[in-house]
């Protein structure tokens, strides 16, 4: 929806995803949106350089989050929250608000 504005279709995907899911990692996004990992990583790197997102090393995975210290984070969030409302429900449900289990599951417990 905003790819013409940002010149990159992955930027809105990353930010919408982080608004709804708090954190993400490259492979997770690549699989979720069925786009190449390299493209996702370049986009994450670009957003990190712009100070919009930050990353943490968790085990062997680099996890990304929106940067609460970014000067325009409130305005950016408002803009993307508004833009998100315009997305069709099936897109929201398919990519951003999956009903996957997020609460903890004890190690070894059968599904």
């Amino acid at each position, binding site marked *: 929806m905003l790819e013409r504005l940002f010149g990159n279709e992955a930027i809105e995907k990353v930010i919408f995803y982080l608004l709804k899911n708090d954190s993400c990692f490259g492979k997770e996004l690549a699989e979720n949106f069925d786009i190449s990992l390299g493209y996702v990583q370049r986009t994450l790197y670009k957003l990190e*350089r*712009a*100070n919009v997102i930050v990353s943490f090393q968790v085990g062997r995975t680099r996890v990304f989050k929106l940067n*609460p*210290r970014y*000067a*325009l*984070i*409130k305005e950016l969030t408002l803009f993307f929250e508004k833009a998100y409302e315009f997305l069709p429900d099936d897109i929201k449900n398919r990519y951003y608000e999956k009903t996957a289990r997020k609460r903890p599951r004890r190690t070894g417990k059968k599904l």
Partner: protein
Amino acid sequence: MKKDISTKELASLIGKSLETAGIEAVLVGGSCVSIYSSNKYQSYDLDYITYENEKKATDVLNKLGFIYDSKKYYVHPKCPYFIEFLAPPIAIGNELIKNVNTIKSRSGVIKLLSPTDCVKDRLSAYFYWNDTQSLEQALLVANDQKIHLKNIEKWAIKEDNIEKFKIFLKGLKS
């Protein structure tokens, strides 16, 4: 460039070269803590923010022997420091920084966050990431420099982090 150059000497040298080239850049982050704490905390990252095109600054750094290493840093073969240009604006949270400090020395000039803003910058990392190293750095600066405590308190209230600000207060030397 001498191998044991201090953060302050290097920042002065870079500051002078940038100024000569007409580039206004402000030093932020951990290296401000090094300078204000007389190296009680040693940072090897020199983070600058400029509103100019970074390519102009690249030319200046290249002349000083710093080369872009493709991992977003400028490095020097004979110097342990990394130089990075961060995205503007110069702000702490959503508070825009309009007044910066200037330190002049024989080797050059440094434009950097004021001691008060440096403390806020470190406290911001402590507030958001619960990073106690940042709290320690804020205290190093606050205990070595004249700061505006009321101003920091007002900002902490706006940031909705008065409880962590109280922990910072407890660490101040009376």
